[in-house]
């Protein structure tokens, strides 16, 4: 059974469609990448899944339960965590408090386990050495790590990651790929991942979904996607396809 099943999701902003009848089913344990050009609706899809935006049409089932239109905090407590494209950590809290907050309010962990779990997550993400630094004093990559750790600390079943790799150099991208591999293995997670660093996508994702102008235009394994006519067209323009 798919852990999450979105059927016929449409979102309109002031009459303009941001998503049109998008279906998305992700298997348990999978890493699913979502790619697409500007304005394709990737972040909107995330906003719909975690309840920031209510869909105009469509239904979302998470582990078989209908979560359509539930507010973000409820969805978080049900086991879906999310990181943002531009990370928002708590600036006045230390790194460890940031992550602790994630563990505390999801209500998915019990008392004694909290501290150990939080320390494990900090080690895993590689930010343990900054544990007592305040969120506001971190640089952008450290903030991304803290946000990821905070999301992991809520012990989710499904993790939504929004553009983790942008702004990283090739070395750092390698590290991040490695990190996600370990996270999946260690925490037994399903990950949906919006990304435009395609090199990372192809070495990490099991399946890729391609959105363009609010519609799903392709889905498949990374190596199939890169040569898919519709995808090439969406990225490069219609006539390239004829040339090649």
């Amino acid at each position: 059974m798919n852990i999450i099943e979105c059927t016929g999701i449409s979102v309109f902003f002031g009459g303009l469609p941001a998503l049109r009848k998008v279906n998305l089913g992700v298997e348990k344990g999978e890493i699913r990448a979502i790619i697409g050009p500007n304005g394709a609706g990737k972040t909107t899809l995330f906003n719909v899944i975690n309840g920031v935006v209510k869909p105009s049409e469509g239904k979302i089932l998470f582990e078989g339960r209908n979560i359509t239109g539930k507010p973000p905090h409820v969805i978080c407590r049900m086991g879906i965590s999310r990181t943002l494209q531009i990370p928002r950590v708590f600036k006045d809290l230390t790194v460890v408090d940031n992550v602790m907050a994630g563990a505390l309010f999801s209500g998915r962990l019990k008392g004694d386990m909290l501290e150990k779990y939080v320390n494990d997550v900090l080690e895993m993400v590689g930010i343990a050495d900054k544990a007592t630094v305040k969120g506001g004093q971190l640089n952008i990559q450290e903030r991304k790590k803290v946000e990821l750790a905070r999301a992991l600390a809520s012990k989710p079943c499904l993790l939504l990651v929004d553009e983790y790799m942008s702004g990283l150099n090739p070395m750092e991208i390698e590290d991040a790929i490695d990190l996600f591999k370990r996270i999946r293995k260690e925490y037994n997670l399903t990950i949906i991942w919006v990304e435009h660093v395609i090199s990372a996508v192809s070495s990490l994702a099991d399946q890729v979904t391609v959105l363009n102008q609010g519609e799903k235009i392709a889905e498949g394994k990374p190596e199939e996607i890169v040569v898919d006519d519709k995808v090439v067209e969406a990225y490069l323009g219609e006539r390239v396809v004829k040339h090649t």
Partner: protein
Amino acid sequence: MSSILKVEELNAGYGDVQVLWDVSLDLGKNEVVAILGPNGSGKTTLLKTIAGILKPKKGKIIFNGKRIDGMPPERIVQDGIALALAEKELFPAMTVKENLLLGAFNKHARKNFNENLELVYKIFPRLKERENQKAGTMSGGEQQMLAIGRALMTGARVLMLDEPSTGLAPLLVKSIFDGLRQLMETKQELSILLVEQRAIQAVELCDRGYILSNGRIVYEGDIREAVTSGSFMRKYLGV
């Protein structure tokens, strides 16, 4: 060919998010140069930095032999670099004519107002038809024409276009690129920096180009050759 705009080892971004890393490029007089790359690669950031809306962290921007990095945007427009953004950034409650009028806000553009207006109406006749319509009520394609038209009204010698084809139907894309082609034929002393996500339209307008991936220049040279060669897609997407 002598260059009119030169960017050297530019680093820029928003706040502490660095988007561009050591980007260098060169735009010749009367040349059209393409900058290609997928979304998030930093194309719009590059244009905004050149236009002075964002302050560069490091590096030089040289226009017509003079350093312009760190200058306020109104000075840069006056010097002759105009920008039409993908978000259009029009004045929705103003008419088409008023939008164009504001394009000619700087002193020397006011002098050549009639001449430039004629040119804009010639390459985008649709704008003349819609002269008195509110900009906010126009279609996406028309708004794109207006954004380009407004940039031209500044009397610029360098025109920077940010994804003029995004979100438009193929027919409209064609009319916009036809307009640009006509513009290059009529107007003397105009160089265009064309940023595009879709390569093919760009290829029809220019020979030379750059590919930007993840904030860095990964290819520089003959753009037609790059697009037709098999490795393009890999290079383009940074695979």
